[in-house]
C-alpha cells in the first residue's frame, strides 16, 4: 500500500512524515517521529494516556488517524515546557507529588492544560469530570486534583 505524505505542525514546528492509511497519530509520534512522551496504554480511547491537542482540541491520539493531521496544529507533552521552563502545571505536579509511576502524567498534564486554557477557576467537581477520561492507577487522583487547583490559582494570580 502506498504511504501517505502528511505535512503538519507539531509543537509549533513544521513536520512532514509518511504514514500508512491505518496509522494513528500515536503510532507516528512514537514509532516514526520518536516522540515517546505521549504514552500508549489502551489504544482504545479509554485511558487518556495518549492525550494531545489538535487545533486546540483535546483528543486521544490513538483514535485519530495520522493522515487526518494534514495542516493541523498538534501540541504534545514535549511542547509543554517552553524555553527550558516548566509550564505551571508541570511545576505544581512536582510540588504536590501528583505523580507516582508517571506513565499517566504526560496525558494528564495535556488534559489539565486544556482545561485551564478554558477555565482558570474550575471547581473540584469540574476538574474531576474533565479528567475522568485520564486514568491513573497509582495516586487515587487526590494529589492530581490538588495540583490542578494550585496551578489554576497561580494562573489567576499571574493573570
Amino acid at each position, binding site marked *: 500500500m502506498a504511504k501517505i505524505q502528511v505535512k503538519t505542525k507539531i509543537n509549533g514546528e513544521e513536520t512532514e512524515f509518511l504514514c500508512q492509511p491505518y496509522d494513528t497519530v500515536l503510532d507516528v509520534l*512514537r514509532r516514526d517521529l*520518536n*516522540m*515517546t*512522551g*505521549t*504514552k*500508549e*496504554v*489502551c*489504544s*482504545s480511547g*479509554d*485511558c487518556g*494516556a495518549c492525550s494531545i491537542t489538535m487545533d486546540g482540541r483535546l483528543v486521544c491520539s490513538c483514535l485519530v488517524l495520522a493522515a487526518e493531521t494534514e495542516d493541523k496544529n498538534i501540541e*504534545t*507533552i*514535549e511542547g*509543554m*515546557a517552553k524555553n527550558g521552563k*516548566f509550564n505551571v502545571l*508541570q511545576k505544581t*505536579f*512536582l*510540588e*504536590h*507529588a501528583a*505523580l*507516582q*509511576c*508517571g*506513565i*499517566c*502524567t*504526560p496525558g494528564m*498534564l495535556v488534559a489539565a492544560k486544556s482545561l485551564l486554557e478554558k477555565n482558570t477557576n474550575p471547581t*473540584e*467537581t469540574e*476538574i*474531576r*469530570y474533565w*479528567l*475522568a*477520561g*485520564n*486514568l*491513573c*492507577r*497509582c*495516586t*487515587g*487522583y*487526590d*494529589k*492530581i*486534583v*490538588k495540583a490542578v487547583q494550585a496551578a489554576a490559582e497561580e494562573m489567576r494570580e499571574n493573570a
Partner: protein
Amino acid sequence: MNEIDNKWIGKNTIRPDGADKVTGRAEYAADTIMPGMIWGRVLRSPHPHATIKSINTKKAEELDGVFSVATSADCVDFPVDTPVLLGIQDIRWMARNVLAKEKVLFHGHPIAAVAARTEEIAEKACELIEVDYDIHPWAIEIDDAIKPDAPILHDFIKFDGKPSNIAGTLEHKKGNVEEGFKEADIIIEKEFETAAVHQGYLETHACLVSVSPDDRTTIWSSSQGQFMVRAMTSFITGIPQSSIRAIPAEIGGGFGGKTIVYLEPVATILSKKSGRPVKMVMTREEVMRASGPTSGSKSKVKIGAKNDGKITAAQGTFYLQAGAFPGAPIRGAAGCCLAPYDIPNAHTFGYDVVSNRSKVAAYRAPGAPIGAYAVECVLDEVAEQLKMCPLEFRLKNAAKEGTKAVHGPTYPLMGYVETLEACLSHPHYKAPLKKLQGRGYASGFWFNAGGESSAQVNITEDGNVVVTTGHPDIGGSRASIANITAELLGIDVNRVSVLIGDTATIGFSNLTGGSRVLFASALVVTESTNQVIDILKDRASKIWKIDKEAIEWENGQARPAGDNAGNFKPLSLAELADQATPTGGPIGAGHQVNTVGAEGGFATHICDVEVDIELGIARVIRYTAAQDVGKAIHPAYVEGQLQGGVVQGIGWALNEEYIYNKEGKLDNPGFLDYRIPVCSDLPMIDTILVEVPNPKHPQGVRGVGEVPIVPPLSAIANAIYNAIGTRFYSLPMSPPKVLEKISD
C-alpha cells in the same frame, strides 16, 4: 537522630526523577529503540484447555520479513514433576506460562512467538503457525475446579491421594477453637465471594532485548526487579546470569504484577535466533487476558465473642484461584486476616486452587484484602449484635506489643491501637450522615518484607553525591533516599542524585515488592553513607594531621571535635572532594546485606458511602485512612501510597471483576468494560500518618505501600450496610448486583 533538627527527613522534596516524568523525557520500556531493531508478537491459545499435539511454524518462518520464531522447544526443559524454586516462584511453571509446553491452560496462553520487520508482519506470521489441539473440558470458577468430576489441569497434582486442582494448602492455628467457641455468647458465621481483579498498571509489559553471537545479552524492560528479570531469563533460556545485563527502564506501575516475566525470555530467544534486537510490547488486551490478575475467592469465616465484647475464637477458610499454575496467595489471606487482633483461639485454612484462568501474579498485599474482607465484615456483624461501636470493639480486641499473632510472631512495638484511636478522635468519626448515606470501618495488616539490597554512595569530584541502589522506583522511593542521604551528610538535597543501577552496575537487590524498598534501601544507603562520612573524617585527619577520632562531621563539614583537637577551619564536602586524590583517592562506599527487621504494618479506615437506590450505584463520598507508617521520610509520597491503595480497594469493592463467558474466555479485556476508578468517581482521600517508629530501623521506616488496600473492601461493604441495611457477601458490589439485592 533528633527529630526536630531534621532538615530533609520528613520533608516533601521534589523527586529526582520528577522533571523527566513531567516533560515526557522519562524512558519507559516501550520508549526504547535500537538500530536494526525488529518486532516480536505472540501467538496465543484460542482454547481455555487443550493438549498441544503439534506446532508447525514452517509457513510463518517462510513469510517475507520474518526473522525468527520461538516455541517452548527453544526453552530449557524443566520436568513437570520437579520443583525449581526461585524465591516464591517455581520456574517449571514460569517457563510453561511464558511459552506453553504440553498443554494450553487458559485462553490467551502463549504458544509461540515471531520476530519480524514490523509488528504487522509478525502478527500475520503468528496466524500462519499451525497448532493441532486436543481440546478438553475446562474449569473457570472455584466450584467447577474442585467438584468431584472436575477437568484436571495437572495430572500429577494430588489432593487426598487423588488427582486434583487443589495444589496446596496452608493453616495457622492458635489455642483451641472448639473450646473458644464454647465460651462465646454469640457466634456469627458467613460465607463470602470475591471476583478476580487485575492490578491495572497502566503501562503494558514491554521489553527490548539484544543478544550477540557470544550470547552476551542486554535486556531493557519494565519490571519490579531487574535481577528477577536476569534470573528468570537465565533459567528459561539457559544463558548464564553473568552474560545477561538487565537494565531497568522506568516502570509505569506494577502493584506486584511485574514481579515475574512474560516477554523477556521470549524476546531473548527471538533475538538469539535472529541476531537482531527484538522489541515486544503487549497490548492492553494481552495484559488483561494473559498477565496475572489476583485471585477470585470463596471463603467462610466464623467468629465468637463474649457479651463484654471479647473475642473468644475465630475460624476462617479461604479458597483462592491460582489460575493455570499453582501459587495463589493463600498465606496473605489466611495469615493476615486475624493479625490485628489478640484472639486466644484461632484456626485459618487456605486452599490453592488451579483453574483455566491466566496465572495469578502478586497484587498489593497479595491475598490479604480477601481475608480481611471476610473477617472485617463478620466483625461488623458481631459488633452490631453486641451493640458496640465497631471501632471500640476492635480496640477491645486489638493486638499490641507482646501479642502472639495467629500467624506466628510475637509483635514488637507497633501502632495498631494508635490507628484506632486516631480514627475515634478524627472529625470524620462524628460527622453527620444524610439519608441513604452510611459509614463503615475496617482494619488491615500486611507482613512487610526485608531481603537483599545493595547500595553504593559515591562523592563526585566537585563534592556532590551519587547514590545507586538496585530497586526499581515506582512510587517515589528515589526522593526518600535523597532525603536520607542529604540528612546524614548534612548537605542540600539537590546535591544528591539517586539512580537505579542495572544488574551489571550494582550488587544483587531483591525486587521491588512486599513494601520493602525504602525499608531495605534506607538500611544499605545509611550504612554506605556512614562509611563515606568515616572516610571523609579520615581525609580531614590526614590534612590536619590529627586523629580521626578527634574529628566530627556536622552540617556537611569535617570539624575538630573540641578545643583539644586543634583550631582548624572546617573542611566542607567540596573541599575534601577536591583533595581526594592526594589524601588517598576516590571517595565512596557500598553496602550489601540481607536486611531483616521489617515489621508489619497496620491500618484502620473510615468510609462513607451514598447509595443511589434507583441506579444501584454506591458512591464513596468521604474516606479517611489511618496507618502506622513508622516514619514518613517523604510524607507526600507516603500519603500517595495510602491514597492509591485505598482507591484500588474501592475499585475492587465496587466495580472491578474478571467476567468469563460460556466459552471460558475473558469477556472484558479492556478499560471500557473492566472499569477501574476514574477521577469523577472519588472524593479526596484523607490520610492520618501515625508514626510509631520501627525499632529495628535507623530511621524507623516501616513498609507502607500494601496495607492501604487491605481494609477498603470491608469498610465499603460495612458502609453500604449502614446506609441501606443490606449486607453484601459478594464482590464487586456493582450496580446490577446492588439493584438486584435491593429489589429482593
